[in-house]
């Protein structure tokens, strides 16, 4: 189902779309940091704002509303739901 073909970095997602996290491709530290605030594989998030190539604002009930930098966003691989 989650063929690589349909997944792309969060940094490239259009504003207003809902996506599901597939995997985090960063190092251990980054992966852990993101997971600890609730960005886990399988999590659904809403992309509120995207200032490509810049930061992204994401939102869901667990995470709340946060802004993450381009570097981080480009390491979160997502698929559109």
């Amino acid at each position, binding site marked *: 189902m989650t063929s690589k073909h349909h997944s792309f970095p969060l940094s490239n997602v259009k504003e207003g779309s809902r996506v599901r996290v597939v995997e985090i491709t960063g190092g251990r530290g980054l992966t852990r940091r993101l997971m600890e605030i*609730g960005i886990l594989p399988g999590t659904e998030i809403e992309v509120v704002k995207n*200032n490509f190539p*810049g930061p992204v604002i994401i939102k869901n009930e667990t*995470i709340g509303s*946060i*802004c993450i930098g381009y570097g981080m966003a480009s390491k979160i691989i997502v698929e559109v739901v």
Partner: protein
Amino acid sequence: MRFHKKRNNYVEIDLEKKIVKVAIIGNPNVGKSVLFNKITRGKAWVGNWPGVTVEKKVGKIKFNNVVIEITDLPGVYSLTANSIDELIARRFILEEKPDIVIQVVNATNLERNMYLTLQLLEMDTKLIIALNMMDLAEKEGIKINVEGLEKELHTPIIPTIAIKNVGVRELIRRTIEYSEESTPSMKFKVRYDPEIEKAIEMIIEELSKLGVERKLGLNYRWVAVRLLEDDHEVTRILKENGFENIVEKALEVRRELKEKLKTDVEFMIIENRYQNILELSQKYVERSIRREKLTNLIDRILTHPLIGFTVFIVVVYSMFLLSFNVGAPISELVSEALSTYLYPVLRYGIQNEFFSSLLADGVLKGVGIILTFIPILFFLFLEISFLEDVGYLPRVAFLFDRYTSKFGLSGRAVLPLLVGFGCNVPAILSTRVLGSDKERKLSIAIIPFMSCGARLPIYILFTSIFFKGIEIPIILSIYLVGVTVALMTAILFSKTIFHETQPSYIIEMPPYLLPSIQNMLSKSWTYIKSFLIRAGSIIVGISVLIWVLSITGPEGYLGIESLTDPEKISNSWLATFSKTLEPLFKHFGWDWRVIASLMLGFIAKEVIISSMAVIYSVGEENLMIELSNYFNPLSAYSLMIFTLLYTPCMATVATIRSEVGLKYAFMIIVYELMIAYLTASSLIVLAGVIHHGF
């Protein structure tokens, strides 16, 4: 456990007070600072955690018979030790062993906040939850079954609305009460995957065989979980105490588990924690549909590429207008009052001339400079607090980050940097709104290159003599040189000393809120207080030192006339040093008098002009004519560039020192002197090449 004392307000004469050590912790932006201020009623000692630019606040309050000593820990999402903040918070809890830990939780965002809660419970802290922002939760239609959650977690939960002081008293009362109770025997336990639980059991068994808990005072289950999470701190502590074997064993177990689970254990553990949290929230949290139309609408405007920037420019412009148009006249009034009323009293009212001059020309000058800063600081901080509390700053960060991240800065740094054009001191203090230690240090290093208001009169004077008709482009070019040098410095520093080319951060996007005036006032007072206390003494000290160097020389005491007599001042230490340095500045076409004026400019950059007037022995009115004999356009331009870039004024230096420590402050000063010298020199060389051809 501490002794229990019966409360009796009348009979109790025993003055020996019970001290309850409390630590307050929470995710960023949950209202921790506000709550801390409410609990301590604004009375707190503010400093830095040792070795880093992370703010540390400690307050003490008396409540009936008990003294509560409360420490504010940095805002963190977890206690894994991902960042210096997390490490500080964790070490404090493990090493200082506070009697009670209060976690401030954002009720609108319970799930993510509870990740930290679970970690705290696992660490075996005596935890109380302050369920804050209850007003917003209600507005957003979030219902939390507090009693149910309290029971399941075996942890007291006190609903609060920090900004309205709701629940604060109850929180304090419950804290004291809870500190007297014994630790609850029942505990909430995070349920991990069965395979992980098995591994935990096994490690606990090993640990108890070795008696680790007794020796290190660490909870077994916590150590076991941390070992499975590959925690470097715990590993280090165990190794240092001769428990290498258990570390090896845990490593093996991790490897085996990875085979079985087909994923990294530490990630599985995080997922398990969130599964526990989701189960809890399904039971105890009820959400009806949120209405956030307004926030969304404002967001769309403020983060719009075009409108957003326009709004930002208007906001910053009005900020400057208010602080400098209202603040500056008050500053002037203060300094005039000091010089017309207080100065004569000190200078001529005291018999001993030396002593009176020390007070008037040394101490009072320093105090005067400190006082003149206050009105501007007050207004600027009020505005910055307003922008912070209303929720605007994170939007600015979002807007600018795209551009600033190329220089190793996050978008949040834009505001402090812009404030630097007004005055470097508040700019440096306001870097406190930035998240990380690195980011603060980086911004602080480049803020002095933002040409502050005090440097402008010098540009105006020199351009009006040497660049008639093209003053504005010349002055603009100076500002531009400052910004360019700042950005290049940012790249250099972030690549070398900070080893980080792209800032990685998480910024909360709070809903827009009406700020409370009281909170804004208390915030700006905190800023001003730390400037007064921490930077104030240094400023007075330097001012006195410069006074001493002006009235004494190699031949000894010159008399205080030296302050106004150019003949005498040329024999002072100040002149002597300047003359020694003369060869270094020959190619600029400057003699010792310029160098001495620049040295005096350390007091405050605007002092350069009045110092020149004294040293060249002309009134300020005639200074222009006099200067045109000594300078040409090139040496004038290099002087302006040098003024822009060299060591910032002593108030700025003192503030840098108090914010980031002596070592780093010293490094910045040396770096800036070097940059000023090199830039001005290369300008001269370049001009020479252009002028003479090849």
